[in-house]
Every structure is written in C-alpha cells, then in structure tokens.
C-alpha cells in the first residue's frame, strides 16, 4: 500500500493534523476562541458591536475590523494582507444589516506558526464570533491544500512542507447548514450551498486540474470539519 507522498510526521496525504478548539478563554473580550492544528495555534478575540463605523465604510451596514498580531516583530505588509483577506471573508458570512453603523473588531494573535496559519486564523475567528454572539448566515471552515512536485494533493501541510511544495491554496468553504427547510430550497444554481468557495488564496504554481483537485479534496475535508465544529460549538453551550 504505497502512499503517494511519504510525509515526515507520518500522516497520509489526506490527513489533517490534530485539531483542538476552545471557546471563551478570555474574560474581557466579548467573545474569544483558540484554534490549533498540530503545532499551529491562533487565539482570536471579538469585541462586539461598537457604535460608529470607520471613515470610509458604509454606514448602512455593520463594519468588521480585523487586527492581526504576529508572534514577534513589527506589523508589515504580509500582516496587512492577512487582515484584508480575513475581513472580506468574515464580511461575507456575517449578517451585516442587523446592526448598521457599528464596528465589530476581531483581534487575531498568532501563538505559533507551523504551516496553514491563515486557515487556522479564519477558523478561530469564526469560533470567536460565535462565542460573541455576532449574527451570521453560516460558519466558515478553512483548510489548506498543497500540490506536491508530482502533482498529488496533500492536505494541511506543516511549515516545512509548505516551503517544499510546488504550490498551496488556502480554501474557505461555508459550513453545511442544518435546515428545517426541504432539501432543494437551499440550492444555489442547482448545487448545495456548501459547494461554494468563500475564499481562495493560492501561492506558487499549479495547473487548473490540480487546483480543481485541491478544491475537491478540501471540500471533502471541510465537510467533516464542519460537522465536528458544529458538534463542538453546540456541546459547549
């Protein structure tokens, strides 16, 4: 039984790292969560709707502000980029019209970076938003898929693997919705909601086929992840 790629820590290519998530860990923040995948760990805190929006934002909607704090060092362009990606992702899952003219701030602190940092942060932010009670349409689950030299797809790389792979993609999918409505009603263009991609960030080089394969694998992994996430969020109520 030969695996396509032998990974250093012994995982199969389709196997993500150990997952751990906990909510409500901070006392001052309105909502907080910590999310860790193997050795990558991120802490997220949410301060609930504050009055007023920032300068160039639309006052008819709620504004989301993301602050990314790296483990050491100054805040540079890479951090700003992560902030922007997270902001757009969160904006698409939150119900922005419920609290117009308010600002919700999400602060993300990187505790350790060992590959797949942005997906980890998005998952943590999502859990923190749930903890704070911010109204959302559905949750977002994120995963990182990378493409190895020979074209095979590997899930959830560590930092070393990320650097060695030809290219990798961070993918964010919506959480599958448990709905009382009949099955067909939540379809978008004939496809179920959870087949859509909310965010996709790629680095490196990959062909269209490889990218689509990544998406397929990522989607399957996220389906499992979203079930686990829902269960864990419900349990700790």
């Amino acid at each position: 039984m030969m695996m396509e790629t032998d990974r250093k820590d012994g995982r199969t290519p389709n196997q993500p790292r150990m997952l751990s998530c906990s909510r409500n860990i901070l006392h001052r923040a309105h909502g907080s969560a910590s999310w860790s995948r193997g050795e990558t760990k991120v802490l997220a805190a949410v301060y609930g709707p504050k009055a007023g929006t920032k300068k160039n934002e639309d006052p008819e909607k709620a504004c989301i502000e993301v602050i990314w704090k790296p483990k050491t060092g100054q805040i540079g362009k890479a951090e700003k980029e992560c902030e922007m990606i997270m902001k757009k992702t969160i904006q698409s899952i939150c119900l922005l019209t419920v609290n117009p003219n308010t600002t919700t701030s999400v602060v993300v602190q990187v505790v350790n970076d060992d590959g797949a940092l942005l997906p980890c942060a998005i998952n943590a932010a999502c859990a923190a938003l749930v903890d704070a009670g911010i109204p959302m349409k559905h949750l977002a689950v994120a995963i990182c898929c990378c493409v190895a030299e020979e074209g095979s797809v590997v899930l959830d790389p560590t930092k070393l693997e990320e650097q060695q792979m030809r290219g990798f993609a961070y993918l964010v999918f919506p959480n599958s919705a448990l709905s009382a409505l009949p099955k067909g009603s939540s379809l978008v263009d004939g496809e179920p909601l959870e087949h859509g991609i909310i965010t996709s960030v790629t680095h490196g080089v990959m062909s269209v086929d490889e990218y689509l394969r990544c998406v397929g694998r990522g989607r399957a992994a996220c389906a499992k992840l979203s079930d686990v996430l829902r269960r864990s969020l419900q349990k700790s109520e």
Partner: protein
Amino acid sequence: MDSRLANTWRLTVNEKKFIETALASDLRIDGRKPLEYRKLTINFGRQVSVPIFRPFFFFFSCWVLSVMEDGSADVQLGHTHVMGFVSSQLVQPYRERPNEGTMSIFTEFSPMADPSFELGRPGESAIELGRIIDRGLRESRAVDMESLCVLAGKLVWAIRIDLHILDNGGNLVDAANVAALAALLTFRRPECSLGGENGQEVVVHPPEAKDPLPLIVHHLPIAVTFGFFSTEYTMVVDPTHSEEAVMGGRMTVTVNASGDICAIQKAGGVGVPQSEIMRCLRLASDKAESITKNIKDAVEAFNTERMLRKIKRHSTAVAANVSIENDVKGQKDKLAGQRVNESSMSQMERLKLKPDESSISQNDGLGSETRSSDQISSQRAEGNAPLFLGGPSSWDPHTHGVDPDFLKASLAAQGKSNPKAEQSSEDSDDDVAMQEKDASEDVKPPSLATDSSETVEEQKTSIVKKTLKDAVKPKNRRRKKTRS
C-alpha cells in the same frame, strides 16, 4: 478607532462607592483579603487546550498535546493573561559595551486585552510597564550579559523579549514580569563556536547538532504592585481591574527573594506616609519569596519534561501510532522525533517499525540480529494493530500505564539484540544527552503518556506508558558493555 467608541466600559459611581466601602471593612470585591495575591499559573510552551470532541471521525483526535517550545511562557494571574516569548539574534554590540550582549523588551498591549487598548503607538501605561520590567532585569544585573558575548566588539547575542498582554484583569506589571522571567529561564540559545582563520568566524550550531544553552540568570526580580485608595490610607496588594479604576495611587516594588530591592516605581498619585511605604517593602519581600518558589517549581517541571523529550529524540523509539518514514534513519530525524507526538487512529495501520530497526542496525552494525528482531517487532505490530481502532484512550494522559511486568517480559522476549542496538544508537549521541538521561533516571514521569513511547520493543499503543527506568536501565548497562 475613536477613543470614545472604545471606552464603553466605565465604572459607575455606585460601583466605585461600593468598592471603597467594602475596603473600609477589609473586604475586596473578589473575596480576597487586602493583602492576598491572586492565583498564579505558569504554563510553558504552547499547550493546546483540552480538546472537547470525541473522535467520531478518525481524522480528528482528542488527545491532549503538549509540545514544549523553548523560551515561551504563558502566565495567568487571576483573570490577567500574559504571554512572553524570548528570541535571540547575533548583532553588533554597542560601542561603549563591546563585551556585553543586549536585551530589549517589547510590550504589546493587544486590543484583545481591553476595549480601551488601541493599536498603534504604545500608550503611557504600556511604556511604563516596559520600563519597570526593563529596570528590574537590566539594572539589577539579573541576566548575565557578558556571557552573551561571542566575539568582543563584533558579535554578541541580542535577547529580545516580547510580552503580549492578552487579557487585562488588573495588575499587568506583575503578570508581565513573571512571564518575562519564566520565558528567560526556559529560553535556550544556540551554541556557537569560533572557527576559520584567526578564529574570527562564528559557527552557530543548530539544536540538532549541539544542545542549546540556557541563559545565566543570577536572581529573579519579582514585581509586586500595591494600590492606594484616597480613603483612610487603605492599601491592597495585586489590584484587579475594577480596583485599578477606583484607586488613587499605585506603587510597584521590584524585589528579589533575598530581599534586595531592585526597583521602586511610584509615579504620582495619592500621598502615602513613610511607615506605609516601609510596610509595603516588607510585604513585597514576603510575596517575592513565594512567587519565586512558584516560578522555580514550574521551570523545574518544564526542564524535566524537556529532558525526557530529548531522550526520546535520541533514541530511535517509535510511538505506536506514528509510522516513522525511511528518512527517520540516522541522527537527523530529531525533527521527526518531535513530530511523533502528532498521531491519529489511522496511523495504526501504518506501524512501520522496520525503518526504525534498520536505523539501529546502521548505527551499530549488528545486522542479522536486528533484522530478526525486525520481524518479531513487525509481527507484533501487525498483530496488535486491530486492538486500537476506535480507542483514543491509549493517548489519554489520564489512562493508567502498562504494568512494568509486561514491559520486562517483552524486553526479555526480544532478546539482547534490541537493547544492544539501542545502546549503540545512544552511543552515537552527544554526551550531553547521556548526562541528561543519567540525571533523569530518577524521574518517573507520569506525563510520559503524552509523549511518544520510547524503545523499539514498544510498538503498541497499549504500551504507551513506560516508566523511564525501564527504558533507560538496560541502555545504561549496554553502554558500559559496548564502551569497555
């Protein structure tokens, strides 16, 4: 963000009056006495929090993983939560001090700690906090700077301490100070040696080649903060956030366990009589002793765990749930050894001990003997694999370990070749590792369960828990044999 938006939390007049009135009868709002300190918890490295879901899918496991990283500490003082990280870099020294290393402290008041903390330039309290901790460490010469010199006038180590304030529950100075100290005590800097012509080239050894060195810390300056209220000279130790909003003045005393005062900071605020100040200094000395003991105990426990981890790295042991790939062979697999901690159910099917065995054979050349033990061990692997499907309890640190008799039996069954093999693999390791093993032989770590089980004989998850003695003893015997 506008500051008016951020300051949505303010104490009402009623709350302020209540706090002051309660203090008049020696009661604090969180139930403490005025001179009582809050509970201090120090954690090292990145400790993943207790997982909360069962393994419905074998992709996700529910084991507690504690991976330790050097130089990072997580301190909780009541509700206050601070994280400290220490890192080092080779830089040019200051011109006036060519023989000394440098140390700098960066404090970040993260917006997640308090709604009133803003991003951007640090405010007064952030700067004051950084200065107090800096004075305590630098001017009392707590950390030995001269040992950080590599090449006088050219290259020295610069230590950088990053303190992240995550949750503001009051008394940030004390908590941040403890975090800085704890991180400094557990930090290890890479060893470097001089080489090249004239001995002017510096070679930095990676942690796999040579063990990193700890910093030399002479004493621990502990900061103790007092809060003064404008009514009746009331004084409290370790004020909480609400008390800080009410109090009229504060004083921070940095003192070490031998009673030496390293720094005192009282910046304005309500006037306090001399006798009160002297009383505060005495109290601070007492508190400093207990906090120092607390820190030292925590660091001891962490160092013990680290030593155990090191032993695991050097032995080519396998955690039952993790398959060791072929590149684990040789001594470069320390990284992989650390990875061994990550595992999941599906790994059980991939118990590959052969590469492990064969790496041993490479080291000592006992080809045929180890190969036969290969077969025995792989048979065992196959045979026991089905036992572990669906049972995460083998990795749970709270399950009971395997009884030593079974371990000894398995040791005997595999014959001499295995232990011998291990012995020689040990031989090829650094002397440092051996010393550490000797030192830790007396330690019986119950926490071993969280680490991967060692020794080649153990291929099963059921035998995860093995006391260190069982692992180490035969090896020591071997060592003497092979060395003599």
